[in-house]
């Protein structure tokens, strides 16, 4: 019951890391809370709730920023602070110009209210296989910046999940930022589609986030990320390999179906059917290839 919860609210990062590592040592780690749009739902449906919570709202000055950061090749990338919300990102013109994938995804997360509260970091850490922010970020090669009292480390988002609803984050660590490398900004061939149960306030039944650039008429450096098709959001390695160095004309829907089957084993659940997911995912990918063709 909510009344029994212990909530701490640090106002500096140092305080936050201190509290986290202490609590981790106690064996009852503090659970970070950002927009709470996942946490409150879990609580409502009676999922076992952590007894101890750390409210991140006091860390806005450090964690709510959207900024450019020095990336590889001395180029500039984009850094979303851990408390950055969908609404905040949608207000950035660059998102619409150079990261259309992320803009499209952000615009249909829940609806207005959820976009105002929900954070990308919360979406990442919640580890839902049907998340909408994660696939867009993954297709853009996003890197998760984890920090603790012991220091900082960077983990590529496509290596962040270790199983169904499991992440590599240690309980003394906080996500402090999500970085999108410079190579992804303005990368051509961005394509995104969510097939939800309805237009808004919908959980994804099947979705595709893809980046499908062409070099000399052939696909190269592609990213194909599947939503609600596996225990976690997943890059489709076989599909990516298959597409690489191929021209549009060399690809058929049947081939896509076969490659997809190597990467993904979707399931039947309360929202959809395995057969629907598999077939629609193949059709989406075909459509993406057609629509991103120069």
């Amino acid at each position, binding site marked *: *019951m909510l009344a029994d919860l212990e909530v701490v609210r640090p106002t500096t990062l140092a305080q936050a890391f201190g509290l986290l590592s202490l609590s981790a040592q106690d064996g009852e780690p503090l659970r970070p809370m950002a927009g709470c749009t996942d946490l409150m739902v879990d609580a409502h449906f009676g999922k076992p709730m952590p007894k101890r919570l750390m409210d991140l709202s006091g860390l806005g000055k450090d964690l709510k920023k959207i900024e450019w950061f020095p990336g590889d090749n001395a180029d500039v990338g984009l850094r979303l602070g851990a408390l950055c919300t969908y609404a905040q990102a949608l207000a950035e013109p660059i998102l619409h110009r150079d990261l259309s994938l992320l803009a499209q995804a952000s615009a249909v997360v829940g609806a207005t209210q959820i976009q105002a509260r929900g954070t990308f970091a919360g979406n990442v850490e919640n580890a839902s296989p049907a998340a909408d922010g994660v696939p867009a970020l993954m297709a853009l090669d996003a890197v998760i910046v984890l920090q603790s009292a012991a220091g900082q480390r960077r983990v590529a988002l496509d290596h962040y999940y270790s199983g169904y609803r499991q992440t590599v984050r240690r309980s003394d660590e906080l996500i402090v930022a999500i970085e999108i490398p410079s190579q992804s900004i303005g990368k051509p061939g961005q394509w995104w589609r969510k097939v939800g149960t309805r237009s808004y306030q919908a959980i994804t039944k099947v979705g595709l986030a893809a980046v499908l650039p062409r070099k000399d008429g052939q696909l190269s450096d592609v990213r194909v990320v599947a939503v609600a098709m596996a225990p976690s959001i997943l890059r489709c390695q076989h599909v990516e390999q298959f597409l690489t160095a191929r021209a549009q004309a060399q690809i058929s829907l049947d081939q896509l179906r076969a490659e997809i089957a190597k990467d993904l084993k979707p399931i039947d659940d309360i929202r959809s059917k395995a057969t629907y997911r598999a077939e629609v995912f193949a059709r989406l990918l075909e459509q993406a290839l057609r629509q991103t063709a120069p």
Partner: protein
Amino acid sequence: MSDKTAPGKPHVGSQMIRTDGRDKVLGLTQYVDDEAFSGWHGATVRSPVARGRIRSIRFLEGPDWRQFVIVDARDIPRFAHSIHGADASHGPAEAGQTADVDLNIVKMIVDDQPYLVRDEIRHKHEAVVLLAHPDRDLVRWAATRVHIEVEPLPAVLDYRQQASPAQIQHGKDNIFKAYSLRKGAGEQEDLWQKVLADATHVVSGVYETGAQEQAYIEPQGIVAHVELAPEDEAHGRWPQKPFHVHIRGSMQCPYYVHNAMKHLFNQPDDRIQIVQTATGGGFGGKEDYPSIIAGHAALLSWKARQPVKMIYDRVEDMQSTTKRHPCQTRLTTALDAQGRLLALEAQVLMDGGAYVTLSPVVLSRGTIHAAGPYSIDHVRIDAKVVLSNTAPNGAFRGFGAPQTIFAMERHLDRCAKQVGISPAEIRRQNLIEPGQSLATGQVIREPVALRQWMQQTMDALNYEEKRANYKAFNDQQLRTGGPLRRGVGLATFMHGCGFTGSGEVWLDSIVKVRVASDGVVEVCAANTEMGQGAQTVFTAIAADALGLDTDQIRVIQPDTDQVPNSGPTVASRTSMVVGHLVAKACDDLVRQVEEKGLLTGARLLPSQAPISEQSDGRGRRYAAADLQAALRQLPGLQGWARYQPPPGVIWDDQTYKGVAYGTYGWACYAADVQVDTTTMEVRLLDFVAGQEVGRVLHPLLAAGQIIGGVVQGIGWALWEDVVLDAQGGMANANLTTYVLPTMADVPEIRTLFQEQPYGYGPFGAKGIGELPMDGPAPAVINAVAMALDCDICSIPATPERLLELSMRPEGTSA
């Protein structure tokens, strides 16, 4: 829009501001859970399986059970000498029984459903044990710490399958109720065969519609207070002395709850008080269920010696309360070369769930509406509703009619295809005209002009042009590998207003108006405001019947201590039947003022047309100020009205022949859709709802009823899917996975009204509440079927089902 109509201007037909609107908009309205309350909180422990015998009930460690009040079936006396006669609220009484009765029975049509399971569980989430405690969170948690051990019994989980002997739980065959209706050659097998043999086309099909959740915003909630005689306060046994039961809560039909509490507690009328609190939606879901939760709260209150509040959360509400009856309809029609319907055969099978509840009446309406608004000489309808081990299915807007109308309207499009004419043409060929008869033999006397009304809807949608364009569009998409397909669809239908046949006579509704101490006329009726605007409409009717302003009228909150039984708020009857009684009660009031000589000197106004065949609206003869002055001198004066049937409403329950309804609402709806064949998602591009509903009493409220009903119908057609788990429990009992449409999923719903005044409704009004639920599903699915050029015979037509259907080999249907 102004707050008041100009002095002397009628309120009926105006855009008068809702009487309950201000408080609702400002968030001031107190729903039952908002009201100040000091007492205990109740929770329900429910069965884990579809069917079985209770072996044991264990109270697990955790809660300090000594702090809880616990009620189970053993607390309710198995037999008591009933002080009441048989109940006739839904039909003629069965042979009068005065012997001992089981109090653990939810009093409705058939005495089969217990408040608490005695030994045999009939459905998952059935109430077994009740708990009360001062702390709301604690009692909810405690309910999860009770383990019910069950010996499973063979359950019926698919109502369409023939029950095996071990699955029989009701009568010899699990059939709750069956009807058959015959017209023309339908009466005689050899003649029937001849009609079929002579026909140019014979078309058959099987159509299925799913369950649907009412999804009122405010879940079920009740506060009960049982006041015992002092002698009974001291001990824990069932009370010996008479006592009082007070119930407040969210409900559609206070007198249904009243009747149920009378039985459960075996008390006379005046010992039971039922008060309706502001109700956040019902749609049929608060027709019968409130009797159950009221009984539970009252049982806990009796044992706890405390007021007890029970509020369901969304999950519990969706798991345990009633749904729309799933239905399978088999149709065979014989047609001539032009597409005229010669004969119709329908076999209707509905899923009643675990107990009878309102199933017989739901099936009745489904049966009567199955043949649609068409003139067909030869008809055979056989309908039955059977048991399955799921939560009982019950009332839901439309009440059985949307199910059979879906079948008929889909079927007609398939017939048109076979005959080689358009969907509009087949309807033109068959729509009923004055002087022709419905399947029941009822001859239509109203001046209906269905072809013309259909054309108006079609024109508003631009149906013909779109149909032609979309054929070309679809061909072009197909050629170029484009994913989009478009279609338009029609449905023509009717809905009977008020209770069926002699139902209104049995209800014997009474309305009272009275003069309050401030001279305001109070309308006392049991019919409830639940968001639909009943209070506003009653206010307008009373004001105009008396020729007074609306601030001289007050509709009082239904409270069985204050209001007579004007029947349930169901069946599209409130404005038409009860509103009419409001006008007549006002007449009676004025007559008495006249008799007292207090209006002899009053200024007279020019005479106006009567309000109806039964109401002259005599109050309007007098200058408002003079009538008002006279009323002020007569505080406590009461005017009464009792239901009188219109002439000629004669119905035979045995043969299902006669005049089923005094009047009908008539409608033609048209849908315009686009399907993305990549994902099989359906998007509505346009929707036009055209209907004839008698005089429109309040244009905005009427449009609101239609738009809301249409969206509910679209939801049922495309998204809303009640998924059952292996025990027949609702697996998606939440609003995340049970998918209701949002604003973003539907286009602007455009409404058209035809008004042909009905002589037995106030100012010519007919019923309107359920009609809009009937047509959207077939209109939308007919449009989708055109878009995809395939046979869709069941709903919800989710993208998953449409994909499966589109990938099936040619020639099979779903």
